């Protein structure tokens, strides 16, 4: 019963999202839409490990930037894009695994975890900024310091380096990518691994006393989050056709957290919507010079924390449930006792 309703809600989200992605190019340029999707995926990666795993990582940008740099460097060295693409996911995932293992096996508390992930991001940022000299090369790729790395092979049809996937085709590529990632993450969360991950978020001690090794489970989840962030970094590199140290910046890290908070933690759709909406707003605001961009972003965060503390998506869910309470109550009446009818309100849009 649980599995069937899970499947139905996941499919509903996928179908609605697909329709929206088909319609959206009529309103917004595909070039802009593409980067919105990429940011959405980046937010999804943090939404997974923070919202479901309870791991607040202040340095999700580290994996984002690492994915992009891995892709760029290996694309220059290899030429054809298939292997670099895979590396752009695998390297950040492996790095997250090692970092996570140190954090979780070291039993660091949440605060230290936040600080360390933040510092790791800053180290990447500082280091990449200082690699302008010609001695900083990996194979044929110069790291380029604050100028970043331009001019690498962008995504091509596997096996055919001459036929690039770009422009509208690249938009569709990203659409399919985020839908697949979303479906996989939903599947992961419905699996025992995901259910145990949520239980760890709720009460780590209890899960340990049940006999589960919490450390390895958190490490694996953290690594999956790192891999997804790496994928979005790889996609970003292909979209921008240049990678710069700015991807590792503090502002980038903070933005991901803001996307998640505004969109709604504890859901997957929330962070994606938060990221796309805020990034688009930032894009629109970037075309004027009257108000400072960061100030408005801060204002939005403050207002949303004050008035929608659970985020946009969960609040919308509550509203929707209130708008049609009769149907829900009726359906529940013979299935469950009254007591938890209120409970399931507000969870309509969850996921």
């Amino acid at each position, binding site marked *: 019963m649980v599995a069937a309703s899970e499947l139905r809600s996941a499919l509903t989200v996928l179908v609605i999202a697909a329709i929206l992605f088909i319609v959206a190019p009529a309103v917004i340029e595909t070039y802009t839409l593409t980067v919105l999707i990429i940011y959405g995926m980046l937010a999804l990666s943090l939404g997974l490990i923070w919202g479901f795993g309870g791991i607040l990582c202040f340095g999700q940008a580290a994996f984002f930037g690492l994915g992009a740099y891995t892709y760029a460097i290996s694309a220059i060295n290899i030429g054809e894009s298939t292997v670099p693409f895979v590396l752009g996911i695998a390297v950040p995932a492996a790095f997250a695994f090692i970092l996570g293992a140190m954090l979780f096996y070291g039993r660091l508390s949440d605060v230290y975890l936040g600080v360390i992930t933040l510092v790791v991001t800053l180290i990447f940022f500082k280091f990449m900024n200082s690699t302008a000299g010609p001695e900083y090369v990996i194979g044929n790729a110069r790291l380029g310091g604050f100028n970043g790395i331009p001019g690498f092979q962008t995504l091509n049809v596997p096996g055919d380096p001459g036929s690039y996937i770009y422009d509208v085709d690249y938009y569709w590529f990203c659409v399919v990518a985020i839908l697949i990632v979303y479906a996989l993450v939903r599947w992961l969360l419905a699996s025992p691994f995901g259910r145990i991950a949520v239980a760890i978020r709720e009460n780590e001690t209890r899960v*340990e006393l049940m006999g589960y090794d919490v450390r390895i489970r958190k490490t694996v989840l953290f690594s999956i989050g790192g891999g997804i962030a790496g994928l979005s970094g790889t996609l970003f590199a292909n979209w921008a056709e240049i990678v710069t140290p700015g991807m590792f910046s503090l502002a980038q890290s903070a933005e991901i957290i803001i996307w998640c908070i505004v969109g709604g933690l504890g859901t997957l759709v929330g962070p994606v919507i938060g990221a796309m909406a805020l990034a688009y707003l930032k894009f629109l605001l970037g075309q004027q010079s009257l108000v400072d961009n960061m100030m408005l972003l801060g204002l939005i965060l403050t207002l949303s924390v004050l008035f929608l503390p659970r985020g946009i998506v969960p609040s919308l869910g509550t509203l929707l449930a209130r708008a049609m309470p009769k149907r829900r109550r009726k359906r529940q009446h013979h299935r469950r006792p009254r007591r938890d009818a209120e409970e399931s309100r507000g969870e309509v849009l969850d996921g």
Partner: protein
Amino acid sequence: MASILETRGLTMQFGGVTAVDNVDFKLQRNELRCLIGPNGAGKSTFFKCLTGQLKPTGGHVFIENEETTGWDPHAVSRLGIGIKTQVPSVMDGLPVRENIWLAAYRTHGRERARHATDSAIERLALRDIANTAVGRLSHGERQRVELGIVISMEPWLILLDEPAAGMTGEEVARMAEIIGELNADAAIVVVEHDMQFIRSIAKKVTVFNQGRILVEEDVDTVMNDPRVRDVYLGKKV
């Protein structure tokens, strides 16, 4: 008869304070043992050394002839030991059924987890609230949920830290009944304050005082021991 749980010279120091001092303890198969003692006697610290939540600073813990000193809690639990902590340790954001399923899944695997979950829910009369988030339940109900988590793992050794704390009289009686039932298949160690409750379940009682075992006798002898009364009233022995 061989003991299934044994400590030799178990010691736990926090800085200069010795909370558990050189304790030798033995538990037989299918035994029901109560640990009592005044506040700060070291019962809960002793308990946490058994479960792996604390690493003892000295001495040894053996479970079924295997030395488990310093093991992590999950490894101790995997030996088939059900543990209930002092403050109900449950997943507040998740429904009762999910709480119990997670425990059952670890022990029984996917196929049998559902059945084990259902029978634990039945046994503890949790059916009406099976789909309610645990955070919305009363204290007594949460205690029952945690017990459900423990019994769904079908342990052969159960460690309960203050199972009757904060419960109503009726609930305490029900808890005593459940513990009696569980004792048919498992050895049980109960850490408890409530003398009334102890009297209703106990056979053999170990009294802790200042980190050491003061007396270890059957329940009636312990209750009539003037030393036990004295430590409970705060007098020096």
